[in-house]
């Protein structure tokens, strides 16, 4: 999770009217900008993004660096296509803007789109590359539309600006059906700086920048520890769960209970888990060890699985809070539902269900008594019904 202040340089020269990148070069840039800004701010809420339009009477800083994605989108709408690209001045102005950034701890970065043939000399570009390196500003260039002509000059710029591989040149060749934003997303230059979190539209899961536990020990040792603990707990659940799956034959009753318990349990697990990230991590599919099972199931079934696992974790005490109402619900439902009553008669089935309920010992005297009582009641009810039928 790198703290970054970014300025995106847009090529709004007349060369961007070209339609070789659908719908035209300018609009494909705007598209990409929304992706880039979104992913930067997703990586870290304090990251700032600004926008500068390079062409026109003079380069125009449309938006000073801000961490509000909405403002970025609004600003892109204000840009007009006009004039010719003025690369050197644009870079200098963005340098100034970054220098006066509000938080000095932010690393400085420029992201530049180039879609017009460059008229600047190679030496001038090399000079400004060194200038950027001296001011510790890293630069990423996305060259498209005029890639062959600009390749040499832009590589010279990048070479001079590069210190430790923080600058990149992405050349997107023209061919049919290419969408610029997809190319940028796929290239991974915007994930490389964040330690493995590519395409960051995951809705804040995993705390942004978390990549399977590898980043954490360096950034946040406490978080790493807690995540490790929850990982181990999950593994234990998994092994228990697999045993359960072998025993448990009837899912319907389990489902009825669980849907009602779902909401209550969700709250409990979230409270009892030491880290809210754990649950979010459960839902991301970035951890192949734990969730190879989950991948094949629908969301509902995933929820049920997770519910089962959380149920197993709860001790007797917690189960009592939920357990007592559950048993009541069980009984009332069973009374009403004839299918259930019939199922109850089957001792094997009952035993297996009891096994799946944590904290319940099937050989417990009380439980066997209650079951026998229920059976008696059912038998009595049946006899009563038969009598009534006969009478009628």
């Amino acid at each position: 999770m790198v703290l970054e202040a970014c300025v995106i340089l847009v090529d709004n020269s007349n060369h961007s009217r070209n339609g070789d990148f659908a719908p035209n070069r300018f609009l494909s840039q705007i598209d990409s900008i929304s992706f880039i800004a979104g992913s930067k701010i997703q990586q870290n809420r304090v990251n700032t993004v600004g926008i500068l339009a390079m062409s026109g009477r003079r380069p125009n800083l449309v938006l000073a660096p801000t961490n509000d994605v909405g403002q970025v989108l609004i600003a892109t709408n204000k840009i007009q296509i006009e004039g010719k690209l003025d690369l050197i001045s644009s870079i200098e102005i963005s340098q100034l803007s970054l220098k006066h950034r509000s938080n000095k701890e932010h690393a400085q970065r420029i992201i530049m789109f180039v879609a017009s043939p460059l008229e600047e000399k190679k030496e001038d570009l090399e000079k400004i590359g060194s200038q950027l390196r001296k001011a510790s500003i890293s630069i990423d260039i996305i060259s498209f539309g005029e890639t062959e002509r600009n390749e040499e000059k832009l590589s010279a710029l990048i070479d001079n600006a590069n210190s430790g591989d923080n600058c990149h040149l992405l050349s997107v060749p023209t061919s049919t059906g290419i969408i610029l934003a997809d190319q940028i997303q796929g290239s991974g230059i915007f994930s490389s700086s964040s330690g493995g979190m590519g395409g960051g539209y995951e809705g804040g899961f995993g705390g942004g920048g978390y990549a399977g536990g590898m980043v954490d020990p360096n950034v946040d040792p406490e978080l790493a520890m807690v995540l490790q603990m929850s990982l181990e707990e999950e593994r234990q659940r998994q092994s228990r769960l697999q045993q359960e799956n072998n025993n448990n034959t009837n899912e319907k009753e389990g489902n009825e209970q669980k849907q009602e318990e779902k909401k209550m349990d969700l709250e409990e697990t979230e409270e009892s888990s030491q880290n809210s990230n754990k649950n979010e991590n459960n839902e991301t599919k970035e951890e192949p060890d734990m969730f190879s099972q989950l991948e094949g199931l629908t969301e509902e079934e995933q929820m049920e699985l997770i519910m089962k696992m959380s149920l197993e974790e709860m001790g007797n005490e917690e189960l009592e809070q939920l357990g007592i109402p559950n048993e009541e619900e069980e009984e009332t439902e069973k009374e009403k539902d004839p299918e259930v009553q019939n199922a109850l008669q089957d001792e094997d089935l009952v035993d297996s269900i009891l096994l799946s309920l944590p904290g319940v010992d099937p050989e417990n005297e009380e439980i066997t008594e209650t079951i026998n009582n229920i059976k008696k009641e059912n038998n009595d009810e049946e006899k009563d019904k038969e009598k009534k039928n006969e009478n009628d």
Partner: protein
Amino acid sequence: MTEFIDLITIIDLKNSECLNSEPSQEITNILKEEEDTNFITSDTDEQLLVNIQFKQKVKVHSIIVRAEGDGTGPQLMKVFQNQFSFGFEEAQSLKPTHKFKLIKRAITEGKLIRFKMVRFSNVGSLHLFFENNLGGGKVTKIKQITVVGVPLETTNISKIQSVEEKK
């Protein structure tokens, strides 16, 4: 007169920086209490810009710059104060408060380089621009920078007593 001290404890290291240094090096290589083997090397060219931020206003008496005697030590040092967002462009164009031409003996032996304290009586940030080095080569190296002075009078909260306690 009040004693002058090494202002290292008053330096705000988080907001201090060195421009054009090698990327892996940190400002604490040169702003530190004791002399050790760490140093700062210049990167793109031979110029170095050190921005020192203080936690409170100080008076600067003098400065010590330590470097090697092999020609990588800095020669021309321009001193600026209380600048905001100070970069190489400003360093080249603005007029410095002080200009020093360092000699080899001064940097190898760590001699005090005296400032005119009247001009440095209210310093919040100090900016040192090392424009070239003694040997004329492409790389400048600095081992340690020590700023000597005294912090300005501020309210010492621990000494505030309520009137009743005195009785």
